[in-house]
């Protein structure tokens, strides 16, 4: 089901959205830095943006998240955040990344905290503004087929809005006055604009059989060369929309009885990630950790990659390690 919204009604549309929850949307923080921020001023909204530095995973798996109140004698009590949130302006790659996170966090052992945030968040996609670091057409994530409530395809002076869920349907039911049905010219324009958008994604990563290539290239010199310049800072994990490792820490108050169990983002590029008792480390060297991250990104499961081609790890790496170049180099020689 598709509807049409003219841009002149966008502010009105957002005020209706705010009835469904606090609206977060991309806002410009510095010259090339966007962030999903609570939208208090319509003028700050940047629906045309390349990518946010921190992906929308931060809404479902927070960078630092209290999980339980704890008491030495009484044990644990969950702290769940069920505040209503509307996430406006999520790109296809990031929606596909959330779909991957869902497969981790909503599987046979659903994570209560993630699930509560997910159930209380409305996701509204928007067409992206690709740059030279995007390669989502290679990873099959240039379109989102599911995982959103509404998706707004920008077509000139309007958005063609696609309904993805019941909640999305309920939202557009509230917007009758400002929405219209799509017409034949809309469809024609939609096709043209989409084709142009896809054409702009020119970077290519050949993922065919990449899993065998990576396993067979364990001793390729590219790993060591890149490990030598890598700072081991973990930024690539932080900014990756599908990286979701976390650590758990207990905090005790001064009474030594009450406290908090919290989790926080962790990074497989850090030394202690695979460290166990007795000082044994299953990935003791940086080169092993780098190799592991590339492998993890190229395989989520037998049927899926764990990378959506957003380009963040390349853009934000302080050592200028280029994700696609490394993989292409490993394939080519």
């Amino acid at each position, binding site marked *: 089901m598709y509807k049409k919204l003219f841009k002149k009604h966008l502010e009105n549309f957002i005020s209706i959205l705010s009835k469904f929850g606090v609206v977060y949307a991309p806002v410009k923080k510095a010259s090339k830095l966007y962030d999903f921020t609570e939208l208090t001023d319509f003028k700050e909204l940047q629906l045309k943006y390349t990518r946010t530095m921190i992906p929308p995973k931060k809404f479902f798996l927070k960078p630092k998240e209290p999980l339980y109140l*704890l*008491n*030495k*004698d009484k*044990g*644990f009590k969950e702290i769940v955040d069920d505040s209503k949130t509307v996430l406006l302006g999520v790109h296809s790659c990031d929606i596909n990344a959330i779909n991957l996170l869902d497969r*981790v*966090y909503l*599987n046979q*052992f659903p*994570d209560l905290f993630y699930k509560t945030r997910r159930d209380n968040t409305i996701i509204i996609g928007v067409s992206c503004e690709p740059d030279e670091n995007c390669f989502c057409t290679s990873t099959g994530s240039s379109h989102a087929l599911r995982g959103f409530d509404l998706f707004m395809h920008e077509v000139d002076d309007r958005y063609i809005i696609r309904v993805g869920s019941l909640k999305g349907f309920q939202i557009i039911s509230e917007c009758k006055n400002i929405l219209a049905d799509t017409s034949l010219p809309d469809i024609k324009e939609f096709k043209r604009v989409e084709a142009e958008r896809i054409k702009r994604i020119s970077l290519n990563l050949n993922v065919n059989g*990449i*899993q*065998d290539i*990576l*396993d067979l290239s*364990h001793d390729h010199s590219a790993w060591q060369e890149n490990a030598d310049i890598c700072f081991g800072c973990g930024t690539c994990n932080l900014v990756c929309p599908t990286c*979701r*490792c*976390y*650590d*758990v*820490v*207990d*905090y*005790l108050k001064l009474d*030594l*009885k009450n*406290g908090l*169990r919290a*989790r926080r983002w*962790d990074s*497989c590029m850090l030394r202690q*990630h*695979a*460290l*166990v*008792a*007795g000082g*044994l480390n*299953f990935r003791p060297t940086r080169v092993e950790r780098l*190799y*592991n991250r*590339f*492998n*993890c990104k*190229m*395989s*989520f*499961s037998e049927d899926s990659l764990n990378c959506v081609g957003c380009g963040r790890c390349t853009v934000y790496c302080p050592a200028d390690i280029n994700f696609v170049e490394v993989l292409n180099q490993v394939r080519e020689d």
Partner: protein
Amino acid sequence: MTSIEKLFYLRLVDSKAVEEFHYNPGQFLEISVPGVGEAPISVCNVQKTPGELQLCIRKVGRVTNAIHRLKEKDLLWLRGPYGNGFPMGVMENHNLLLIAGGLGIAPLRSVLQHALLHRDKYGLITVMYGVRCYSTMLFREEFLKLFREGDKLGVEFLLAYEDKSDAECYQLACERSDRCMSGLVTKLIEATPIKPDNTYAVICGPPVMYKFVVKELTQRHFTPAQIYMTMERRMKCGVGKCGHCITGSSNSIKYVCKDGPVFTYLDALKTRGLL
């Protein structure tokens, strides 16, 4: 039990949990001490009385030290059981060869107990246990009894000790030189006429042990599917979320917590870094 290992008897206090709580040999629990943290620990006995279980815990860090400081009737919090556990059903009607090093005997003890509880379902049971010395031997009374009288139950219990000058172990070696010898646990495999026919081998021990044991077994024509082993990794969640236990390269990624901790040697051959 030793200077660093204690055996803990746990009873669930939540009556609803007692009904629902079932575990299999090789599964583990996430044990919490509020304010300190959580650690994965294997259950080391077979489930008999509902709501009762045993854990053998070595103090190595924050949580395990805190557990060691507990007194009788103190409270612990637990989640689980997690992990696949040993395929006790698959191994029925086969001989069992259990090979353990050090603390690795804890999960294998639950396999042994399970097989003894269902004695007619399993063939000959051979246990090979490697320790540093007598004083680090876990479940000592139990195992000495098996060492001496196991044959009545169809159990051959063999012991290897590393510390050549250990007097108690030396005495055991004098008692049964074919069942107790100085050296690593692999020495027992070398010295014992074991056949792979109709047999499953089950290994648990410190990470360095696996390669050597597997080598001995494959030389004896055990196939990679006849060898089970249980693995350790850093674990936080135990349920496939936190990413700490992920192992492998992109053509085979395994979560030790939910795909394991029990794997076959075939899994290890396919999954880089698992062994």
